[in-house]
């Protein structure tokens, strides 16, 4: 006897189930709150802070390991870089950063961490596994921004007083070239394909594009925003879109993020975000760019395809840096 097949779920239930299904991503963002001495854990689906982790004093630079298991946070006034276990959401150790670490770069494979030590004009290389400083490289006065090439062969360090981008060869641990840029260089970022390095100059109000092989400046990008004095435009954070077609530059007290076309080097759009925008991070799917806004105490979410600010998520006081989990 044949029993008529019964649908497993009525159509209405199926639709309800589909609607209730989680969004495509469930990324977690981590934001350092410089004034609160905390890291906010932000669920990007819920668009809310789900946990606040107490950390050392004056947390600023932040990065996440490629496997997402560890988070590294500069506790500037404690002269250390703290390691947070992302599963337990607790500080589990620290790294010998040297005095007043502000920011650092993590090698693409997560094995080394490059820290700029502002007070002694050095770049310190730390081996993450052994938690030991393995080398120190003399660089320019007041080193600031750090970036590592995608192949982990070149480290770029900007120096605030000498106004230069120093290119360090990882194999020989030597500065192989120094390129002059406009005053107070802050951020540096490699294109995902490694073909260019972009350096922001906070006082110069510009972004310099450098050929990392020839060590030559190829383009200088200027910013003009209607109704804004030039001194309010202070470029700091730089982040590329996943396909390298766009660059997002945080313009500090201009309260805007400039979106630049990497083919034409022209600014496509200025997006109004929160107050005093400093740093940026892209979600792993490349769909959203997050910004930290120091005075409005929030994170703005930019839709990369539409180039629109879609959300503002309140975090702690004086948010500085942001990192997004790879999963």
């Amino acid at each position: 006897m044949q029993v008529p097949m019964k649908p497993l779920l009525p159509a209405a239930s199926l639709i309800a189930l589909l609607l209730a299904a989680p969004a495509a991503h469930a990324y977690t963002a981590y934001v350092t709150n410089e004034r609160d001495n905390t890291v906010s854990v932000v669920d990007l689906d819920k668009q809310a802070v789900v946990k606040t982790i107490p950390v050392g004093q004056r947390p600023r630079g932040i990065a996440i390991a490629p496997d997402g298991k560890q988070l590294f946070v500069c506790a500037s006034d404690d002269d250390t870089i703290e390691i947070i276990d992302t599963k337990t959401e607790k500080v589990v150790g620290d790294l010998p950063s040297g005095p007043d670490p502000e920011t650092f770069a993590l090698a693409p494979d997560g094995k080394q961490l490059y820290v700029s030590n502002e007070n002694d004009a050095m770049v310190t290389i730390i081996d993450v596994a052994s938690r030991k400083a393995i080398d120190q490289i003399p660089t320019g006065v007041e080193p600031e921004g750090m970036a590592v090439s995608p192949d982990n062969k070149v480290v770029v360090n900007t120096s605030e007083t000498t106004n230069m981008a120093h290119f360090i060869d990882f194999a020989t641990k030597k500065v192989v070239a120094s390129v002059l840029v406009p005053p107070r260089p802050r951020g540096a970022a490699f294109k995902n394909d490694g073909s260019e390095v972009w350096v922001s100059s906070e006082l110069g109000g510009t972004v310099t594009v450098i050929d990392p092989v020839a060590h030559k400046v190829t383009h200088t990008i200027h910013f003009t925003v209607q109704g804004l004095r030039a001194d309010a435009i202070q470029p700091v954070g730089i982040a590329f879109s996943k396909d390298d077609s766009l660059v997002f530059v945080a313009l500090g007290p201009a309260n805007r993020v400039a979106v630049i076309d990497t083919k034409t080097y022209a600014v496509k759009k200025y997006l109004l975000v929160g107050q005093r925008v400093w740093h940026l991070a892209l979600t792993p799917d490349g769909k959203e760019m997050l910004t930290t806004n120091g005075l409005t105490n929030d994170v703005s979410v930019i839709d990369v395809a539409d180039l629109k600010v879609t959300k503002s998520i309140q975090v702690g006081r004086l948010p500085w840096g942001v990192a997004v989990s790879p999963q």
Partner: protein
Amino acid sequence: MRATALCGAALLLTTAAAQAAPPVRDPDWPCAQIKVPLLSIGQVWTGPPIDAHLTTWANDPVIADLTRQITQRRLPIADAEQAIRTFAAAAGTEKQARLLALAAGVFSTLDLQRGQVIAGLDRFGRRQKQLAAQLRDDLAKVRDTSADADAAAPQRELAQRLEWETRLFQQRQQTVSSVCDVPNLIEQRLYALMRAIQAALG
């Protein structure tokens, strides 16, 4: 209202000079943040132009009074936002013009207030540098005369002065970070108020 009118005129000039030279490092500036002496309307406003209202907003007593109330830091920001909504609802067909005048009043008032704080910080930075120079000089004098037995009395006096100067310098230095935060607090309030006015415009 002369000061307000002058301030409005200065704002017009700074708006016109929006493409002025990029900032330079001020050696006397005591704060870690880069000095931005004047705000730009574009930092806090993306609505219709308010330039026409910068010199006239203070002539309307209702707008002048509301501006004075909501720019005071002791008024909770939620109450200020409610006051803006109530003002917008009462403005009827003149809502847009009156809200733009209010925006001009809020921007002028808080930019002026912030400018006064910046000027105070400039004075603070200069005085602190003078104190540091004085400390260095007195310290050198104490060292120079320490081996001279005849100079014992003047040296005691100098050492006492040095102690006072050091204490004063340190006390002032400890207040720098909180004093440097005042322009930020004003900017935060300005941003919140301008957003509330823009939201009321619809």
